[in-house]
């Protein structure tokens, strides 16, 4: 059976086919809306999300760089101020050097290492028993004072024994050396 499609009547105005142009106009609007909804709108939405993420991430990056700069400056300042202490904590205890350092105040006879232990998880504490001969206790005070500027971090501690010996004083004391672990 043959279907008969009704022929669209041709309406012309100033020689322009009104129906055809109307259909093209509808087609144009349809294609325009279709492309807008299917391609352009999702692209804009996606672009907006990515752009927002871009600026958020950039803001975070700027902040982290600022913080890093601040930390670097703080570290450099602290390092500069405490250079002597930092290097002192890196050095091993050198018996000969210590003898030389002490020679101005007393004569070191013996340095005995007693024990080595971890101190506060970050340091190694070595304990030595020092035996020395000195002429007067004043030298001991001077030595303790000078030890603040020694190249190692040393703590003079109890027990301290002074014993008269042939006109001099035999001194025995505990010395603790601290080093970075």
């Amino acid at each position, binding site marked *: 059976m043959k279907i008969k499609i009704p022929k669209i009547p041709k309406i012309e105005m100033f020689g322009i086919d009104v129906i055809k142009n109307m259909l093209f106009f509808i087609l144009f609007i349809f294609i325009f809306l279709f492309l807008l909804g299917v391609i352009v709108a999702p692209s804009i939405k996606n672009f907006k999300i990515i752009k927002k993420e871009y600026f958020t991430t950039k803001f975070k990056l700027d902040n982290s760089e600022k913080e890093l700069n601040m930390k670097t400056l703080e570290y450099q300042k602290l390092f500069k101020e405490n250079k002597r202490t930092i290097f002192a904590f890196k050095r091993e205890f050198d018996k000969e050097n210590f003898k030389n350092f002490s020679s101005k105040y007393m004569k070191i006879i013996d340095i005995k290492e007693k024990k080595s232990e971890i101190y506060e998880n970050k340091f190694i504490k070595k304990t030595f028993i020092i035996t020395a001969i000195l002429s007067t206790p004043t030298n001991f005070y001077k030595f303790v004072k000078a030890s*603040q500027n020694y190249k190692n971090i040393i703590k003079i501690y109890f027990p301290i024994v002074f014993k008269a010996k042939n006109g001099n004083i035999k001194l025995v004391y505990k010395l603790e050396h601290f080093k970075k672990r």
Partner: protein
Amino acid sequence: MYSFTKANKKPFFAEDTKLWLIFIFAISALMIFFSLFLLTKSYFYKNDISEFKVQISKNNKKITDFSNKIIFIKKEKELNTQISVNNELLKDGVKNLLDLIPDPITLTNIKISKNSLFIYGVTPSKEIYNVLLLPPLKSIFNITITNFYQMDNGWYKFESINKLKEEK
């Protein structure tokens, strides 16, 4: 029939149809081009975001490293100060103790511990010891015990044991 004019070739599309088609094609191309432009821009943004994230992660790691170093330097500084103060206090403590010994009394041995002091020496008489040395020792220590041993020349050897009570 015969015509004096030549037959014109009939165009495939009418003029207005062509115009509409061009118009539709142009707007479609424009929209597709715009979308492609946005996609390209998004692609570059995404690349930048990935780079930023890597950089942020590196920065955070460096910040943590610096923070740890700063904490450690502060700890070193604190320990050094504490040791310096301890040494200074020890020096003053020993000096003050030795300054307590009056001239007539001679020491032969002195052992200073954290909570105790042992003094061995020679005194011309018990009275001199009891008047000049005992009171300051008693004022410092909780327990003070002294033993005297007379020598051939009449002087006394003494041993003084002084202790601080441990705080509970």
